[in-house]
């Protein structure tokens, strides 16, 4: 990215002043090195977001930002319905409420070693992953509606978890305002037998080891200690969310002129929040969020079943569950005034700090856990929402390492088998049905996750708590 176009506010904050049709500035959080390595398209896309009606304060890009469609991945923007603000299907993305859930095991690496191979094999056989995989649950119309309204709560009622799990999920495992009527038959059909499936691409289930602690007090409160084994599940709303995205992107793009909206990029397809279309999308998108929460709950159940076979005494409590691709109605203070805003986070994590209303009681004193996914060969991180600057980017942080090479470029550089073998030498087991898929997801295709985490920490978006290294990775 051309740094000369940006004003440096601090070592990790960069600003593009409004020009042309931009209504607000664009603010990018990253180190100089990360900014320099970012695709120019990130700046173009975040500047386009800043042109949308009703945008408040600024359009933000997180340290892991990379070229997406419409919004950059790692983009955050809030809109005020009282000022003609919009809701954008492109600002949420196809994989509605894609997110990460982390489970605590209470195990240490030494506990895992004697059965690591068998555990990896059993996880890969039990967790449906990749194109063509199906779950064991087939939903009829009535159960589909219940799931779309009930989220993880529905899954727990069906026996896929424990009531206390819900206390460790954003929104208590269920977002209100879901509209089953707004979800098309096509979306329902795509989801009928996809509950409890991981998907493919960058989705994974990873067994990880805590290798470093940066904040002892918060780590202890989260139940983390050096050497601990945790399980992280990264997936979303599967076919239902994909089809909702498909349906509404088309409809919003075609309806934009009728709403008086000039789109700087067709992919920013949106509608006024207070329009019939905007409200319908909001209802469908919330149903998609509940679907993702239910999906991660069922995968939690399957994971617990596998671990119970090897370690009957452990219960795998949920540390927390965060969503990345959402639009949520939240109250924020902007220029000294409290306002109800619709905050889009596309490839970004909500990062509420200590004391913030809406936090589960378990995290009221610490702030919420924020999970930063690495790659199958590089560190992931657990961070915590920062209380020092509570309105920083509408209390948001990054969500992962972020890609630096396209799938195309990755395929030219690596072979899947070579990566699996190299990682095995480092003690990391990869299970995937596709070696090409492994090559496309090569660790080298991603940015340095440690640099992304450091930038988020220094920028005050979230604070470092623990570093994790992969031990077993199940890919779709």
């Amino acid at each position, binding site marked *: 990215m051309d740094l000369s176009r940006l004003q440096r506010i601090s070592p990790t904050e960069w600003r593009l002043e409004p020009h042309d049709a931009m209504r607000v500035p664009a603010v990018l959080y990253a180190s100089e090195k990360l900014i320099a390595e970012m695709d120019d398209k990130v700046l173009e896309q975040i500047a386009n977001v800043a042109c949308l009606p009703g945008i408040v304060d600024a359009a933000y890009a997180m340290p892991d930002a990379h*070229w997406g469609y419409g919004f950059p991945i790692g983009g955050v923007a809030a809109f005020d319905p009282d000022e003609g603000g919009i809701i954008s299907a492109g600002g949420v993305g196809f994989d509605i409420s894609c997110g990460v859930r982390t489970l605590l095991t209470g195990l240490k690496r030494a506990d895992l070693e004697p059965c690591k191979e068998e555990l990896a094999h059993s996880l890969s056989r039990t967790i449906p992953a990749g194109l063509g995989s199906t779950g064991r649950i087939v939903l009829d119309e009535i159960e589909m509606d219940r799931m779309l309204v009930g989220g993880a709560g529905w899954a727990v009622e069906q026996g896929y978890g424990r009531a206390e799990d819900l206390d460790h999920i954003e929104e208590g495992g269920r977002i209100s305002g879901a509209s089953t009527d707004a979800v098309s038959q096509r979306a329902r059909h795509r989801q009928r037998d996809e509950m409890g499936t991981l998907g493919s691409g960058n989705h994974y289930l990873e067994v990880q080891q805590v290798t470093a602690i940066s904040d002892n007090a918060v780590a202890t409160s989260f139940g983390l200690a050096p050497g601990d084994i945790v399980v992280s599940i990264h997936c979303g709303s599967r076919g239902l969310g994909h089809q909702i995205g498909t349906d509404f992107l088309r409809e919003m793009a075609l309806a934009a002129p009728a709403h008086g909206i000039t789109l700087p990029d067709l992919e920013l397809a949106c509608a006024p929040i207070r329009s019939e279309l905007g409200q319908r999308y909001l209802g469908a998108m919330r149903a998609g969020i509940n679907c993702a929460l239910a999906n991660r709950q069922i995968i939690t159940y399957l994971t617990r079943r596998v671990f119970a076979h090897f370690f009957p005494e452990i219960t795998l409590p949920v540390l927390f569950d965060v969503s990345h691709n959402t639009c949520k109605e939240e109250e924020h203070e902007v220029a000294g005034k409290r306002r109800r805003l619709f905050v889009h986070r596309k490839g970004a994590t909500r990062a509420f700090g200590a004391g913030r209303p809406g936090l589960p009681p378990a995290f009221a004193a610490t702030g919420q856990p924020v999970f930063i996914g690495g790659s199958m060969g590089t560190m992931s991180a657990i961070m915590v929402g920062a209380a020092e600057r509570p309105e920083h980017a509408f209390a948001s942080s990054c969500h992962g390492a972020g890609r630096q090479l396209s799938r195309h470029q990755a395929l030219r550089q690596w072979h899947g088998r070579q990566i699996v073998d190299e990682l095995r030498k480092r003690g990391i087991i990869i299970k995937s049905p596709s*070696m090409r898929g492994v090559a496309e997801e090569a660790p080298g295709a991603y940015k340095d996750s440690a640099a992304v985490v450091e930038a988020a920490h220094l920028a005050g978006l979230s604070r470092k708590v623990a570093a994790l290294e992969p031990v077993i990775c199940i890919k*779709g």
Partner: protein
Amino acid sequence: MAPASIEPRAELFAHGADIGVRGVGPTCAAAFEQAALALTMAVTDPARIAAQTQTAITCEAPNDEFLLLDWLNALIYEMAVRRLVFGRFAVAIDEHRLRGRAWGEPIDRARHAPAVEPKGATLTALKVELNDKGAWLAQCVVDV
């Protein structure tokens, strides 16, 4: 009359975390067929796919770009709900109405080793155009 020298071809192009699919052909319909083939190439090797089943698809859209979007999304839908992969396509376009057929087989995870799961065709880099050499091009980015 389409120029005879334009060889139909399917190709992928780079886009961040996702994949661009592009079809080129002597007619708009041929470019749509090749774009569909490129969609399959994002997932697996089309040469490994047997033509066991035939699926009929019809779409109608306000313009060629949205017609391409609808065509690819209809294929993605069929792949998802019927667990199919397609290796051969035939398309006829009349104004902005498309009648298409896709031949393929149920996905075999061992033999096809699918690399990614297409989520949806996006409006990014969406283009249907006739270039100055007489070739039709149909392309967009697919979220995977």
